[in-house]
């Protein structure tokens, strides 16, 4: 048993070294994430939303996650797909996902399948224990996915985002 653990550790260490080596030689697409707090501002009776640093975070607060991708390689990046599981202790903020030039789909089954909101369903038990199928709601989402319709040219960057509410 102990020998097995040693073996696994060795493998993971070597993978890590190898990975570092690869990154050192070739550039990749890079991804960065920013979390910001969404606050509602009322100015002259008009409500608008403003992004603030993610401090004083409490249950019920809304967080916007902004994901920035940049192609650091010398060639176009094809079929760029960004996938973000909903963080634990949060639920998806309905209608919040955005991304220019991206087809946005969602999963309600832990990332196994993805579809647009109109095609997502949940199977739940009714009072008599029978399975019934209902349309999925925002709080059922487990993942958000952005598929970029166009290749990302070398040096080009872009952002996608979504909102989550702290439970």
């Amino acid at each position, binding site marked *: 048993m102990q020998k097995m653990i040693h073996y696994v550790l060795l493998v993971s260490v070597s993978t890590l070294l190898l990975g570092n080596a690869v990154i050192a030689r070739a550039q990749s697409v890079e991804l960065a994430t*920013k*979390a910001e707090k969404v606050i509602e501002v009322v100015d002259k009776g008009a409500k608008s939303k403003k992004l603030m640093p993610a*401090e004083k975070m*409490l*249950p019920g607060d809304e967080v916007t*996650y902004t*994901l920035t991708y940049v192609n650091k390689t010398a060639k176009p990046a094809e079929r760029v*797909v960004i996938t*973000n599981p909903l963080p634990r202790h949060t639920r998806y903020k309905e209608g919040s996902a955005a991304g220019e030039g991206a087809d946005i789909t969602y999963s309600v089954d832990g990332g196994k399948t993805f579809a647009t909101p109109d095609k997502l369903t949940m199977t739940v038990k009714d009072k008599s224990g029978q399975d019934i199928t209902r349309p999925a709601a925002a709080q059922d989402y487990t993942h958000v996915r952005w598929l970029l319709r166009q290749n990302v040219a070398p040096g080009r960057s872009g952002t996608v985002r979504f909102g989550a509410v702290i439970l």
Partner: protein
Amino acid sequence: MFASLLRAGLALLAALALLYPWSTVYALGTAAGTTINNNATATYSIGGVPAPPVSSGVSIRVDELINVRVTAPVSATAVNTPDSNKVLVFTVTNIGNGPESFNLTPNLSVGGDQFNPTPGTAGQLFLDVNNNGVLDGGDTLISASLALAANQSASILLVSNIPSSRINGDQGVVTLAVAATTAGAAGATPGTVLIGLGTPAVGVGSVDAVIGAGPGGPADSGADDSVNGTYVVANVTVTVSKVIIAVTSPFGVTTTGCNAGVPPVACTALVPGTIIQYEVTVTIAGTGTAQGVQVTDNVPANTTYVGNSIRFNTATRTDAVDPDNASCAGCGNAVGTVTVLIGDVTVAGAPITHVIDYKFTIN
């Protein structure tokens, strides 16, 4: 390693259970101190060849929301005058997401009422450990602050003595104020941030504390709350008297006025065959409701009940158990019980009186 972690976890749960035996902890919001990790992954191809996926993460930490509510007793507590150790039950709930301690401050001198209660002889504030709304053996005197876990509530017994010589309907209003003990929290405007003063429910170290909004709206501090409870003097008394009002001799001569100060001589000439008419007077006095008033009288030894002789406020009643409010089912020679149900009687002002009479024959 894992087993020891599990053991430590179980030990912690057991410790929490010991600390907070008097109510249920139920999660409402994400606990203060929780770290929320977000991880995104991007996949792509270069020249038709899949490249290694890249990931990016960011973490935020949940701060402590300080928010407390105290709810009033469901109804006023009826008391006598004088009275002692009368209980009002308040419920204090930590609706924040972290453990917090609260000072409880009773005010017995609220204006606009008729009397001021005084602290109970047994003590003034108790934690209702067994949650039965009654001051009993297992309840503990609260001498310092009250510690509540996130989303935990506690039943608090405010115990008072009631002064003498009050009249029915007099009220004594008391206030229970609760305030978070975190420095600067009580009375602070909602949204106020107390840097580093929050207590995490999970994890270690400190978090910021943020004041929530109270029941009064967005300008009302959620770090404190107060509510009134009321004692009301409502001593209803039910008195019953029973006298012989008439006798009928074996020769058929009826003598009335047997309850007079100086009764006729015939009233005391009780020989076998004499029929005695008893009268029971029920008086309900005070302010309030006497519930389920019922009069019963067993047929005495050496007498026999006279069938269908019960009258209620001089109206005749049958012996059967039926919709009329009197019965003497199976009554006979030293057997049975005269039963008259009066029910709930609400009195305010003049006392209410009901008169019942019935007859027994001396064997």
